[in-house]
Each structure stands twice: as C-alpha cells, then as structure tokens.
C-alpha cells in the first residue's frame, strides 16, 4: 500500500514581522523525505518545528525556499496532506463516524466508497462500536484516535502530526504511540511527526531530525536503523536515544553557537 509522497524541502526560511522588526523563525531548512518514510522532528520550544509543519500543511505561507510534494510546489491546503493537531479539534456536534467523514467530505468518489473507507478507519484505530459516540463522551486518547482516523481516511500522500500526544497523560501517550506505529505500518503513508519527547521521536521515526532554536535550523539528523516494532528497553534503543539527547543536554551557550 505504498503511496507516492516524497517531500522535498529546499532552503526553507520564514520570518514573522513583529512591530516592524523581522523575527526569523526558520532559516535554511533543507530536508528530503522518501515515500513511506517516518521522520521525527525534535526540538525545544521556539525552534520553529510547529511553524514548519504549518507551512507543510499549507495553513501558513509567505516563505522563502521551496516545498515540493512529488515534484510539485504545494499551494495552500490539500487533501493530499493530512494533519493531526495537538488538540483533537473534533466538531462537538458530530459523532465519531460523522467526524471522520469530514475527512472525505470533499474527496472524489461515490458515497458507498466513502462510507466503506470511514468504517475501515474506525476499525483501524480500534474504535469499532463507538461510531455513534460524541466527543464529549470520549476520553482524550480516544478523541485523538478519531482525529488520526479523520486525517487518514482520504488516504493522503503525507501525514503530518503536530505533537499529537502532548495533551495526554503518560500512559495513554505510550499506548497511542504504539497504536500510531501499527496504523502507520498498515497504511504506509509518509509521516512527519513533530514532538519534544525524544523517546517518542526515536520510537516512531526512521530518522530523527534535531532542530535548534532562534532561528530554527536543522542541527543534526540521526538515523534509527532498528527493526519494528521497537523495544524501548533494548540497549540499541537507549544508545540512539542518548545520542539524540546529548544534543540538548549541552550548555545553553554551546546550543546557540553556530556549528
């Protein structure tokens, strides 16, 4: 079930204007993502990782550089690129099934196919039986699963995840990381995850992109050549995790200095 979905980011820069002064948020980001790859992006607050994601999904524009999806420049939002936000952002007046159906509202295809896709994805995220439940009746973890189903139901080429488990408790987070991994493997979509949790990044990513703040730049890219599903207690896992962590435990001065 491989998709196209190669993403090329070339020398991406963005700045915000605050009271006539330019605030650089991203500076010269270049990244190539293969089809079906899972890339994790880690960084502290202010490193621009969320801005990067918003540029990729098309909710923000006005940047320098190029973003190419399968060789085409991206323009605004598109059903080819799905996103899961940190808040589930479900519509409170729709039940689970209807919320997921929002994802295929404007997708091509007949009603029958769409209905089938919605049902498949409800099962995929493990919420069979909850089709008629409303968001206020669901836990945080379940709501996020609905959001994931909604993002995947129209089979996008790229799935973006903006700190999707940040608002959940630690145990739910761990469980959902596993679920996400399983779902991703089933769908084969290219995925980009932004997180400040290093363990999550290493657990899920084929590569971990470490970003540094002010302005946001790519500091280093760490490969994670471990077999899936990953064992968090394995020595190899810990080594890679420590390797990534070492980028952050450095003193503030060295973190800000140019490399």
């Amino acid at each position, binding site marked *: 079930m491989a998709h196209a979905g190669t993403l090329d980011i070339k020398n991406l820069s963005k700045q915000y204007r605050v009271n006539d002064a330019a605030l650089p948020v991203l500076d010269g980001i270049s990244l190539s993502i293969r089809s079906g790859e899972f890339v994790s992006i880690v960084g502290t607050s202010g490193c621009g990782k969320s801005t990067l994601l918003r540029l990729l999904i098309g909710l923000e524009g006005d940047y320098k550089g190029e973003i190419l999806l399968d060789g085409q420049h991206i323009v605004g939002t598109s059903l080819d690129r799905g996103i899961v936000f940190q808040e589930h952002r479900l519509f*409170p007046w729709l039940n689970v099934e209807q919320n997921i159906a929002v994802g295929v509202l404007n997708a091509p295809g007949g009603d029958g196919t769409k209905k089938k896709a919605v049902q498949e994805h409800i099962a995929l995220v493990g919420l069979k039986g909850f089709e008629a439940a409303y968001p206020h009746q669901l836990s945080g973890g379940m709501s996020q699963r609905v959001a994931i189903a909604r993002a995947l139901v129209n089979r996008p080429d790229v799935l973006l995840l903006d700190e999707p488990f940040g608002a959940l408790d630690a145990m739910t987070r761990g469980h959902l990381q596993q679920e996400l991994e399983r779902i991703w493997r089933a769908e084969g979509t290219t995925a980009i995850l932004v997180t400040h949790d290093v363990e999550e990044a290493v657990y899920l990513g084929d590569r971990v992109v470490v970003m540094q703040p002010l302005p946001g730049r790519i500091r280093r890219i760490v490969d994670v050549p471990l077999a899936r599903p990953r064992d968090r207690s394995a020595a190899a896992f810990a080594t890679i995790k420590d390797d990534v962590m070492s980028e952050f435990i450095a003193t503030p001065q060295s973190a800000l200095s140019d490399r």
Partner: protein
Amino acid sequence: MSTTSSTTTCRIDLRGWVLPLTLLALWWALTAAGWVNTKLIVPPGNVLHVAATTLSDAAFWQGTLFSVTRDVSGFIVGALGGVALGSLLGASRWADRLIGPSFHTMRQISLFAWLPLLSTWFGYGELAKLVFISLSTLYPVALGAFEGVRGVTRAHLEVAKVYRFTRVQLLFRLILPAAAPQIATGLTLGLVCAWVATIGAEFLLANWGNGLGNIIIKGRSTFNVELIIVGMLAIGLVGTVLNRIAARLEAHALRRQGRRA
C-alpha cells in the same frame, strides 16, 4: 415545618407552596369577611366563576389563538432576520464595523417608543403589530447569533481549511452548528420578548380586534376586575408554556454537544 434532612430520595420541597397558599387563604378570608371593598379586591370565588364563563366562551379561545398566531408569526420573521443579521455581523469584520455601531445604538431606543411611529406608518392593524413583534425578536436573536458566530474557534476554522470546505459547507457544517447553543439562547430570549411585545402591542395599538390583550382592555373599560385577572392568568400561562417549549428545545440543542445550559 419539614426539616431539610429526609430519607426519601425524591423530596418535593413543599415550602415554596406556603407563601402562595397563605396569600390565597388570606385573600379568600378578607373578601368573605367583607373587610375590603369587594369591587376592587374581588373574591376568588368570583374570579373562578368568571374564569369558567370565559373559558367556555368560544370568543376567548379565538382571541387567544389570534394572540398566539401573531406572536409566532412575528417571532419567526424576527428570528430569521436576527439570525441572518447576527451571523453577518459575527462573520464579517467589516460588516461589524459598518453596521455594528448603528445596530447597538438603535438597541438603546426603548422598543415601545417605536410604536407610535409604527402606528403612523402602518395604522393600528395587524401589520403594525407584526412589525413591532418582529423588531422585538430581532435584537436578542441577532445578539445571540452574533456571539455564536464570533465564537467559532480558529482551531475549527483551520480544520475546515485543511479539508477544503467550500463557503457553503463552511456556513452549514461548521459555523451554524458551532453557533447553535448561543443562537438557541438568543431564540429563547427572543421568544420571551416576542410574547411581551405581542401583549404590549395589543394594549397600545388597541383596535378592538381580537386577542388576549383586548380581553383585558375590555375588562378594564367595564371595570370587570375578575375579567382582568382571568386575562392576566391567561397571559401568564401562555407565556409560561412558550417558555417551557423554548427551554426544552434549547436544552436539546445543547445536550447534543455535551454542554449544559
């Protein structure tokens, strides 16, 4: 008197009945003993008698129907206009800047002050009353719609953008459902205002036509206090029924979203 602690799970608080029942008893006692001018403070018995007569009079029911019809028609017109206006002001920053100040200022003119002018333009008939009732409904509904539409979160608007909602889809699948609770509140308030406006219009635009208000006016002019009281009770009852219906609908609209009124 009963204590607050009780072993039964379903406890009806009877203390609320003490005051009205006492007053009722007092009323009856005073009139029976002849201590008050029974022309003014009429005995409850007489009121019941007149009530029975009125309720069996077809003209009364016709009048009530007229009043309620006026109320509902005016309400519907005012509600539709209010939702449209409020949504427009809430959705478009520029509409709010252009129309908003005028709208909020006009709101300050006591509604009843409009009646003489309306009667100059539309006479004392149905049209004037309908226009007045619609106007009374328009303001609370528009305010509710305004707040509801304004309150649609950026987070949800971004989701709509990601899934490429068309303008029509945006309006009917996001904005209106999201604003529904506040619109419902506005509609409830509008219903109350509409009923007050109906009765007020019937008082002030009296044309000896039909309606509950006219019944009261008749009572007043013939110094039939019993009739006035019966009319007042009828007005209160209809008002309460309308309020209950509106509250039910509002609770239903809120419940689906898991919010409490």
